[in-house]
């Protein structure tokens, strides 16, 4: 709980924040819109009295109504963690600018958020799936994701062998043996 | 027929063995006697006329038969010694202290599935282990185990030895290439580069020894060291010995130069796709290589079969068993029985609940051990080749132990460090040694 930090943040970023600065225990939280992410984080990085140089975590969150990207930062100017929530991403087409220009290490964390939620980070050179196979079609951590037991009815249906329905009346000609080009 | 089948199935295993074995034994004995009677004299004349050929065949057979047990012994030694260095126990279930482990491993590789991976060239794939194994075995031809106990005394023996060492490269490359596997390819290429690089310091370092001994025959080199301990070439060529040892470690693909089979890097290198007896061949070949390399090191620098000190007591004990005549037969008939009874008595008396037949079996085993010890002791003091062989084996296994010790202790070098070491350090050192030796010989001769 660092009131000095709160004042500095409000002074520097007041016009970007979409809500009040919240502080609880040893965490300070600010909310911004997704388009402001690069400037806000660059300001937090560069300002000499803020100096949030260490990115502790980059997480995606699906709140059911919107998507969020949550950044946790550490600075040697304050004993608090700073949580920056980029709120209000559209659940159907979430897009947010990438921060790989500041921290190269965010590349894989953004890949993970993309893999789990479908959040597209614009500017990430390598935005592909990291945990799931590259041809997987759904996003596991979304709130409307189905477990593979019901996967035949889920958006990821049809690709994996296990996710296909195996009853005889669902057999089609493509479930037969695949021929090679030679034969 | 069904009555016979049923009767057969009711016979126990032992019964089946007896029912098959005894008639087979009788037939074979009759055939052998008949063969000897008819062909005997002619065969003996032929053999007597071609004694060197006979000697060669016997030597080669003995050597071939010797490779597998020595490989077994070295495998067991490696596992046990490295385990003890690692503060663990190692094999200790199969046989006393795990000594039958190698036998079980041998049986295991024989029983595995024999396959060729898809895409592999079947002929090359099959012949690669054979080439590697045979290269190892061929080298044993020129090693003198004892005075008079060598395969063939080639007067270019050492050159032949190094040629056979180079033959292993062919086998490794064949294995690596034909496996249709990138890991194997890498392993094969690494090994080719390694062996070829280390051949040169290896051969250059022994040229000094050749100059000193005046001959390339390994037997000749050993004979040149047979004066006293100080005649051993280790004292006259210490640098060469060091270079040879290091280069030989690389030739034998042993740690720290075991990148070809670095099992934490490229799984098993060139041998990744091999299983069963094919892998067994590679495996045995490596250990036979260790033995060979130690044997040559001992022959070249440590006097081979010469002993470092003289026996303090008179050696020859003229005991000619044939002079006993009929008494020999009596001895052979009576001594085993008496020995079994005498040696079984303590077992029988010590534990009253032990069945008598068990005590007799233990006595028989004890008698066999005593008899073997006595015969070996008599051979040791009567035949000079026995002493020589014992010394040779002792020294060789000392260096085998050193190889095993290095494996348990040292990490691996990288391929570029390895090649750099060979070309930048060992080769100049070997050349330096050669020049100094040649100069010294010229100076001393003058």
């Amino acid at each position, binding site marked *: 709980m660092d009131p000095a930090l709160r004042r500095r943040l409000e002074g520097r970023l007041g016009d970007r924040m979409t809500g009040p600065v919240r502080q609880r225990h040893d965490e300070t939280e600010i909310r911004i819109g997704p388009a402001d992410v690069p400037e806000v984080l660059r300001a937090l990085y560069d300002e000499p009295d803020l100096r949030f140089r260490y990115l502790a*975590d980059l997480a995606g969150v699906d709140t059911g109504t919107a998507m969020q990207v949550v950044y946790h930062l550490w600075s040697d100017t304050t004993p608090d963690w700073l949580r920056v929530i980029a709120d209000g991403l559209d659940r159907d087409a979430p897009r947010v600018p990438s921060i790989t220009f500041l921290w190269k290490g965010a590349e894989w964390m953004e890949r993970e958020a993309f893999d789990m939620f479908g959040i597209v980070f614009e500017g990430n050179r390598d935005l592909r799936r990291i945990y799931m196979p590259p041809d997987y079609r759904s996003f596991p951590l979304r709130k409307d994701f189905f477990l593979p037991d019901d996967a035949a*009815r889920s958006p990821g249906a049809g690709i994996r062998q296990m996710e296909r329905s195996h009853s005889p009346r669902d057999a089609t000609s493509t479930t037969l043996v695949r021929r090679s080009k030679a034969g | 027929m069904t009555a016979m089948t049923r009767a057969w199935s009711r016979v126990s295993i032992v019964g089946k063995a007896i029912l098959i074995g005894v008639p087979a034994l009788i037939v074979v004995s009759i055939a052998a006697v008949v063969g000897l009677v008819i062909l005997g004299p002619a065969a003996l004349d032929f053999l007597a006329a071609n004694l060197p050929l006979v000697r060669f065949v016997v030597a080669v057979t003995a050597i071939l038969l010797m490779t597998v047990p020595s490989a077994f012994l070295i495998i067991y030694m490696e596992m046990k010694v490295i385990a003890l260095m690692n503060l663990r126990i190692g094999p200790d279930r199969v046989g006393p202290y795990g000594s039958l482990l190698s036998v079980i491993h041998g049986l295991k590789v024989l029983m595995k599935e024999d396959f060729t991976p898809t895409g592999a060239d079947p002929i090359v794939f099959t012949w690669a282990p054979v080439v590697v194994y045979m290269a190892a075995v061929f080298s044993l031809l020129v090693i003198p185990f004892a005075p008079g106990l060598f395969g063939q005394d080639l007067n270019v023996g050492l050159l032949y030895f190094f040629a056979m060492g180079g033959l292993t490269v062919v086998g490794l490359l064949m294995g690596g290439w034909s496996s249709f596997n990138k890991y194997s390819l890498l392993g094969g290429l690494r090994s080719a580069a390694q062996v070829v690089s280390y051949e040169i310091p290896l051969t250059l370092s022994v040229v000094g020894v050749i100059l000193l001994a005046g001959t390339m025959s390994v037997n000749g080199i050993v004979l040149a060291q047979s004066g006293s301990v100080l005649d051993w070439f280790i004292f006259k060529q210490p640098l060469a010995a060091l270079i040879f040892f290091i280069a030989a470690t690389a030739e034998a693909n042993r740690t720290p130069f075991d990148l070809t089979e670095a099992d934490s890097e490229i799984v098993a290198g060139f041998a990744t796709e091999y299983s069963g007896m094919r892998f067994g061949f590679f495996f045995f070949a490596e250990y036979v290589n260790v033995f060979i390399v130690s044997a040559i090191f001992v022959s070249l620098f440590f006097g081979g079969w010469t002993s470092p000190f003289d026996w303090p007591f008179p050696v020859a004990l003229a005991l000619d068993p044939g002079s006993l005549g009929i008494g020999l037969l009596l001895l052979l008939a009576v001594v085993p029985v008496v020995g079994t009874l005498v040696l079984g008595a303590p077992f029988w008396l010590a534990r009253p609940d032990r069945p008598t037949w068990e005590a007799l079996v233990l006595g028989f085993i004890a008698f066999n051990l005593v008899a073997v010890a006595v015969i070996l002791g008599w051979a040791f003091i009567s035949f000079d080749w026995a002493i020589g062989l014992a010394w040779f084996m002792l020294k060789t296994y000392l260096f085998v132990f050193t190889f095993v010790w290095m494996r348990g202790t040292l990490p691996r070098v990288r391929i570029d460090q390895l090649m750099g070491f060979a070309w930048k350090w060992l080769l100049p050192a070997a050349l330096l040694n050669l020049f100094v030796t040649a100069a010294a010989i010229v100076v001393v001769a003058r």
Partner: protein
Amino acid sequence: MTTRPEAPLPFDIPAHPSNDDPRVTLEEQLGVWEAVPPFPPQTEREAEFYTLRDGEMLINIGPHHPSTHGVLRVVMKINGEQVVDLDPVLGYLHRGVEKIAENADYHQTISHLDPLEYVASLFCEWPAVIAYEKLLDCTVPRRAEYIRVLSGELLRISSHALALGFHALDLGGLTPILYSFIERDEIVEMLAALTGQRMLFNYFRIGGVNGDLNHEFMSRLGDWMSRAVGQVEANMTLLNENEIFVRRNRGLGTMDRETALRMCWSGPNLRATGVPFDLRRAHPYSVYPELDFDIPTREEGDALARFLLRIDEVKQSLRIIDQCLHQMPDGPVMAKLPRLLRPRPGRAFAAIESPRGEYGVYAISDGTDQPFRFRIHDPSFLHLQAFNLLMPGNLIADWMALNASLDPIMGGVDK
């Protein structure tokens, strides 16, 4: 879980056409597969990586490999023996822990976290319990905090011993790992006496720890401490000055401070580059403010520095354990909390210093008895990212050494 069978695809990512693309030919005659490059490549980086120039080839290291510290697949582009580029492929051990945690009670999530960094599992439970305690606004008794620190530091020593042993093993030395495992075995037996488990401890609870110190633990700990200081070092420094080992590791994977911070590195890997960032001092948690210990750093930033730094950290951990034993207060080991936990709706983040780096948990609670979102931040994930920077120009054998010196645990990387 809602089920909407007719939900349209929210987002049409074209399926990877490896199975269906007619341009990809299966070599039926041979029946063998290449490390299939995605075709067409989906990102810039893939296109750059999977374009092979003259003399380059793709080789798979893993996922089934003796020295990948778990199931990690690395597609390497090599030119002979030299590595030109690397593409780590993760996900072979992905268990969906974050999703499972959304369906589990708060107490149950603790035991789901153990298998993440299975070598040092108490450090996986710790940030979660801290985060939950923040959400519940409960204080942990001091004795419980001291026990947490004590068991954590013991586990840190054990984990570093394991890391050093595997480093040596990957380089070909067969012996140091067994010496390290002597230490690890003793510590693990101690912790088994304390927690009941040798490996996945499930010991920390929300509000404290599961059980108090017992006689067997204290006697084992006393025995070990009486001979620990010299022996631990001796067991882990078998290879310190071995010429071969030093030449393999010196100058390998040298990371400078700035790049390490940009890659979000933490833990011993970061401290080996010279940045004295340790969460126990940078953002103190538990009772670390009361304990006296140093933060060892090294300047070189190569694999040898990381190796030696882990040994230094073990010495510091021994100091901490000593102080814990002397300063251990009396009291309860568990705070009074209701059985069914319903924290206030809110968000909490906690991060601790695990033997690998910063281990973080971000928990969102919506007032029910199951977490709404449970995010785990693993340090090894980010260390692996640096392969692309550190490897090119080195040889394949160097990858094993580098991987071992970075000490990733794939359970945490893949979650």
